[in-house]
């Protein structure tokens, strides 16, 4: 089932048309298994949509599309209809290119308030609009492929299919976007992984080979040199193993970056655990880690393991780059709106008192293998991937990472995360 995006099938919550829901589940299985031609699946989908439409027109009796819309919105997090249970975004469009209905997946991905307005207001990719326009102008169907680069790169196969219905208010186009992200980007990610790995592993490996040659040759009987070389070899080997570990975890995050995790995570416990894990390391540098989390802090939506990796990396950096004897502070607060996305959330700041980071380096910190001071990074055991991993995990959570720093004073890394949805409300 790996091509099905991360929504679980809530067949049990579909109150009606259980047989149709069964068909939808079976269809998703077949498509993801590659057993079924996407066009055939589209035909089946059209059937499902027809079922939905019947349901939809019945609801329209109650009033205008606006009435139907608010009824849908109140049930946003629990798929109530077969239409909402479909994992791919499906949009029904009228003759003026206005969105008449959009399933849960479409509303989540594009705009919760997309129903009622022109399609361009929520989904303005020119390729999609030209497909829909072509079908509105009489073509039976149109297919294309698009990539949406922001916030996380996703690619979709676009299917616009015309519906023949004489009634003026009836939908004219069914627009289905089939998620192809995994298939399209897996190849690219593998290529990146190999390119990075081969480039970055070459230098420790070259060092190892060099020392082995010296130990077998000129330094064969030099006990002092042997011990010294073995120490260096050990640290180089350890660096390689850390590097491989980090590269693997980065790849693991990237593969799933388009799937937003939604489990509720209690940050208070998580941050205390992170502080405890790193307290030994801090004590060694005569430093203290202070955690300040209000009791009322709401849970955030996320993946606990990955979030603990985020804060572990940030606090680990703060301990490494903070001045000896200074304190590292972790502070979490609830905020009204996360910059840019504008939704409610939690901000976690990790503060260190160190040398600070010059402004021109700040936006490049999350680049993989970008190091301000190569020698220093190596001496504290950095792989050059820690912040890249942080950035990708935060991206996956649709959060934000903000870095502020004053040279000579210290740096603050702030992570913004979305609050978990309480079940039943959105």
């Amino acid at each position: 089932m790996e091509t099905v995006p991360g929504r679980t099938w809530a067949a049990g919550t579909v109150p009606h048309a259980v047989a149709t829901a069964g068909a939808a589940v079976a269809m998703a299985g077949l498509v993801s298994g590659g057993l079924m031609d996407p066009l055939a699946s589209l035909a089946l989908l059209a059937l499902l949509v027809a079922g939905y439409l019947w349901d939809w027109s019945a609801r329209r009796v109650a009033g205008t599309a606006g009435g139907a819309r608010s009824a849908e919105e109140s049930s946003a997090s629990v798929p109530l209809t077969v239409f909402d249970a479909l994992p791919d975004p499906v949009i029904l469009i009228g003759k003026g290119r206005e969105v008449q209905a959009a399933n849960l997946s479409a509303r989540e991905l594009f705009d919760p308030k997309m129903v009622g307005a022109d399609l361009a207001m929520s989904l303005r990719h020119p390729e999609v609009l030209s497909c829909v326009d072509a079908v509105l102008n009489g073509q039976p169907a149109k297919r294309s492929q698009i990539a949406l680069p922001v916030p996380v790169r996703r690619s979709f196969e676009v299917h616009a299919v015309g519906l023949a219905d004489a009634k003026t208010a009836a939908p004219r186009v069914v627009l289905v976007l089939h998620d192809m992200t995994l298939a399209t980007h897996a190849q690219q990610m593998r290529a990146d992984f190999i390119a990075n790995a081969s480039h970055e592993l070459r230098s420790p490996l070259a060092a190892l080979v060099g020392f082995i040659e010296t130990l077998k040759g000129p330094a064969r009987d030099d006990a002092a040199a042997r011990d010294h070389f073995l120490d260096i070899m050990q640290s180089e080997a350890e660096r390689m193993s850390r590097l491989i570990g980090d590269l693997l975890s980065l790849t693991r995050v990237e593969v799933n970056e388009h799937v937003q995790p939604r489990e509720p995570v209690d940050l208070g416990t998580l941050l205390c655990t992170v502080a405890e894990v790193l307290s030994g390391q801090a004590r060694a540098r005569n430093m203290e880690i202070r955690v300040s989390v209000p009791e009322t802090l709401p849970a955030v939506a996320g993946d606990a393991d990955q979030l603990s990796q985020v804060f572990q990396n940030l606090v680990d950096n703060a301990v490494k780059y903070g001045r000896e004897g200074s304190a590292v502070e972790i502070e979490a607060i609830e905020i009204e709106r996360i910059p840019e996305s504008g939704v409610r959330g939690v901000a976690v700041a990790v503060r260190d008192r160190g040398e600070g980071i010059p402004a021109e380096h700040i936006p490049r910190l999350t680049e993989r293998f970008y190091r301000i001071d190569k020698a220093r990074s190596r001496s504290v055991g950095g792989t050059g991937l820690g912040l890249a991993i942080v950035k990708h995990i935060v991206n996956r959570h649709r959060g934000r990472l903000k870095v502020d720093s004053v040279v000579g004073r210290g740096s603050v890394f702030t992570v913004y995360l979305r609050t978990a949805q309480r079940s039943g409300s959105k």
Partner: protein
Amino acid sequence: MAQDHIVKSFDEELEKLNNVIAQMGGLAEAQLAESIEALVRRDGDMAALVAAGDKQIDALERKVESLAVRLLVLRQPVAADLRSVLAALKISGLLERIGDYAKNVAKRTIALSQMPPMEPTHTVARMAGVVQEMIKNVLDAYIARDAEKADDVRRRDVEVDALNTSLFRELLTYMMEDSKKITACTHLLFVAKNIERMGDHATNIAESVHYLVRGENPEDERLKNDTSSLTVMDDNIPEQE
């Protein structure tokens, strides 16, 4: 949006104007995304397609102009309605400029694809990623009439400027190390500059959105962080990878 007007067609015309701006924004976003993809993949053919696609944006700009003029003449809007029309005119002009810069990136990509690959290309792509996010967010802010979101976009411009400065230094170092790389580096410098300008235009659009929603210009002066014009290469060149 504002409350409905007695003349229904007036609302429809305003809505139409919004739709065309959204469509234009979608085109500008796609042009930028594709020009950068062509740059990273060193795909001259794809870049040529992007360069040719600029005409569509120009056509939409003319459409916005004629719609706006029609609205101004026939309806003589005031207050919020007038601001909507003025903002639409201004934003369409800025989006058209963004399209022009994307076209220039595409043209330079055609030249760059004939030269050996350059490491800083990836940094340019990262910078473009930030600008892509800014453009997307500012268009979303325009559509949702969300002044706070627009203000967030304005704050983001500092990041682009810092990246541009850092790239400028990096490329200068490459050129000093190897004179054979000067042509390619110069093209990349201009590509970076184009992207930086697109970021500035996204910021300008954000200011228009703020004005459109609040009826006044944003208060605080934008933080400026572009010192690349002041960068002097001295003896301690920053270490590069």
